[in-house]
């Protein structure tokens, strides 16, 4: 039983655009490497569900929101820099 907290992510994308696709890929890889078995990724397509973007005050895609653990954090972009990701998610060792 892991005492490490479980990470919840929500990634906002716009269809199959390049950046969005890249962001998705990068996130998945990152989670697999650094948060194995303790992450959740939800992908929301703003084209399909525009209201959710409004609810989360998302106005750019791709946008990653860390829902858990608190505090919430927000990252916009392709998520190509793992170091930045680590800092933002507070996972620096």
């Amino acid at each position, binding site marked *: 039983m892991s005492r490490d907290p479980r990470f919840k992510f929500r990634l906002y994308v716009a269809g199959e655009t390049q950046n969005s696709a890249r962001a998705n890929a990068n996130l998945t890889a990152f989670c697999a490497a650094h948060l194995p078995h303790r992450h959740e990724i939800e992908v929301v397509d703003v084209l399909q569900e525009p209201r959710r973007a409004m609810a989360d005050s998302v106005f750019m*895609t791709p946008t990653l929101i860390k829902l858990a653990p608190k505090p919430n954090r927000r990252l916009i972009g392709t998520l190509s820099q793992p170091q930045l990701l680590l800092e933002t998610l507070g996972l620096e060792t």
Partner: protein
Amino acid sequence: MILETSTLPTQKSKEIAALIETLNQTQKRLEELTAGEVDSIVDREGHAFFLRRAQEELRQSESARQAAILNALPAQVALLDAEGVIISVNESWGQPGTANVLQGPGFGVGQNYIEICEQVMGDCSQEGQAAARGIRQVLEGEAGEFSLEYPCHSPTEKCWFRFTVTPVSSDHLAGAVVMYVNISERMVADEQLRSKTALLEAQLDSTLDGILVVNNEGKMILQNKQMIDLWNQPADIAVEIDHRRRLKWITSQVKNSKKFSERVAQLYARPDEIARDELELINGKYLDRYTAPVIGRDGKHFGRIWVYRDITERRRAAKELDELSIRTARRERLLSTALASMSDFAQIYDQSGHILFVNQPLLDLWGLTLEEVLGKNLSELGYAPELANKLNRQLQSVFETGQEVTDETPYTSPTGATGYYEYIFSPALSAEGKVDFVVGSTRDVTQRKTAEVEIRFNEQRYRSLVQATTAIVWDTPASGEFTAEQPGWTAFTGQSFEELRGWGWLNAIHPEDRAETVRVWSAAIAQGSSYEVEHRMQVPDKTYRNMLVRGVPILGEDGAIRQWIGIHTDITERKKLEHQFLRAQRMESIGTLAGGVAHDLNNILAPILMSIEILKLTTKDPDTTEILKTIETSAKRGADIVRQVLSFARGLESQRIEVQPKHLLGDVESIIKGTFPKNIQFEISVPRDVWTIEGDPTQIHQILLNLSVNARDAMPNGGKLAVIVENCVLDEHYSAMNLQAKAGRYVAINVSDTGSGMPQRIIEKIFEPFFTTKELGKGTGLGLSTVMAIVKSHGGLINVNSEPGKGTTFKVYLPAMGNSSQTPEEDDVSQLPRGNGQTVLVIDDETSILTITGRTLRAFGYKSLTAVDGAEGVAMYAQNANDIAVVVTDMNMPIMNGMATIRALLRMNPMMKIVAASGLNVNGDAEKLAEMGVTNSLVKPYTAEALLSALHQILKTPSNAAGGALHGQ
């Protein structure tokens, strides 16, 4: 509505231009800020605006993807709009060489494809019409999709196409995608498949099997008539190309539908699998199903073949066979168990005598297993050749004649069990009445046989016993009549089996006894009690014997009488004895009576006798004197009789006084002369110096009288009676010879006659009480027994010598008085004449005499040789002629008697000195002997003194021819 730019008021257009510029700048700036990482902007209302780059990308990728997809398809694809106008096509569309019915000018983009199709001419015009219709239906939403397959052959090859129309969106009319796929390959493949199975087609209708071929697309390629009939496919199912429908129907016909479908699906899913199984249909049919993949020449998999065969019958037959074999197996097991539990040994043989079956007990007896014996002949199984041949011959005869054969035989099994066996070979007939095989059943009867043997042995013993016994043993069944041979009865009575059988045996019974016998016998039978009776039975010489009969019943196991066994015992002698005993008792009582009477008579006679004496004195008349003498004689006779009676009545109470033999003999003489017939000569001799006898005069008188009477009776035609008395010393040697005698001095009284004599067997019996050779009533048979009793009571002894036709001599020795005045000098043993070592040959048939005489001779200086009969004597003499000085031979020997022996000896040596020893003291022999020159004789039994003096005498004389006095010591 968007206005044209030229008519827009300047302000609006300016605003629009400025907004557009702003939009542009914004986009640019956003891109800079986000380093190109952002694709879209999402406004407050959630609408996403793609940034320029993303838009571009999207568009490009979208179309590229679409185009890539479309072009990758091995099909010609065109996108139509809702009206049927071609919006786009893929690369394949319109390619040359793709014999596409709708090969129109150009690619057709922008043209209405529906119209194109409708306008197709020629071979494919029908298809064109159908296609157009299909497109319209799909565009208008009437059909979900449309497909059409059609051939379109070129001169060089065969082509088929599949034309499909699919709507773009399922929920609103947005156009359709039309596609042509070249399915020639598949169709060719299908045709190949068909040609491949064409070979089968030829056989299809001739085969009984139902054949179905389904290709990989689930289409029925072929199915034969049997397939239709086998399943009873309804017409619409039968023609169905789409096998799925058929399969569904078939599944419904099968009993275990679920399992069936699963299996079928499995088989279709594994194209290479070959399988065989059985199906049971709901109508009760059974089908054998075989399925295999169908592979083309090029190794490509085309489909699956299914072969069905109706095995209902076969299955039923198999089931019946199964049941039959179960029943048969059960019967076999029953039979086997029955055979095994039998203690009898069972075998089954075939025509050639080979074993078809043998039960366990016999296998155990042989020590073999069933495998080892099956098919073998008895000769191969350790049977002795003779026995095996006999059994095989018997088996053959059963096969040939159909008659069963029974026999028994001893047999020793390989396991070492020896026994006696009874067996039957029975024929087992086939349905046509022929002998199929022979069943042998063998039983161990060893015990019964040994029992039989024992019974026979016992019966043998019984019979031997019966024969050995002198009584008659007989047996009857419970009814009491004779039903079997009675050897004992037949031997005794002389009645044959025929005569004695039934109640015939009664004829052998004395008539007076028959009634009683029948009465007692019948009662015994009726009551089952033992049977006892006395009756007289007739023997072959017609006389009757008295028989005591005893019979007992023999009970069977059930308690009923099985048979009677009886014994007849001859009690004639006993009855005689009883008679005699009774008579003796009578005699005794008479005797007692007589004693009394006699006493009285004595008293009566005494005065008479006395008176006669007186009268004799007083009379001078000769006649009177004569008369007186007669009276006196009579009276005296009367007195004598009385006395005799008295002595008899008194028994043997005796006194011991000195008795003068002379006086005694005087009395006897007078009686004899007075009473005996005139034709009997009488001689009496009593020496002067005779000793006195210590005894009872009356009794001694009795002896003399009885002997004399016997002598008289033995000479009915006259003869000579001699009574000679002499002194006698019986020495130890004599007493050794004659066991009755004590050594001492005796007076010997010899009474001899020249009468008929007696054979040896009579002599043995004469002293027995009641024994008489006279007829019943004549003579009491007590005479000699009285004599014997008297002699014994005096301590004397009596000897008899008799020769039939010659005469008889009785010798009575009575002890002499101890201190007689005339006692002669005691014979000093030392004065007896001794020998000088001469050899004496003694011949006598009595070995005791030989022994004693030999001893005596040796004791007195002789050597002795002995011979037990005349022949031996002669032989001995022949061997030892020079040594033998004198021969002493008994005259009375069997076979070669003394006379013959003497003659033989004298022939050998006329000068032979011979002494004849004889028990008879009468003249006949003496004369003959004297003629031969034998004058020396010895009277048997002889004392040592007599023997020695005789020898002395004879040896003294130079030859035996010299006269010698007759010695009688």
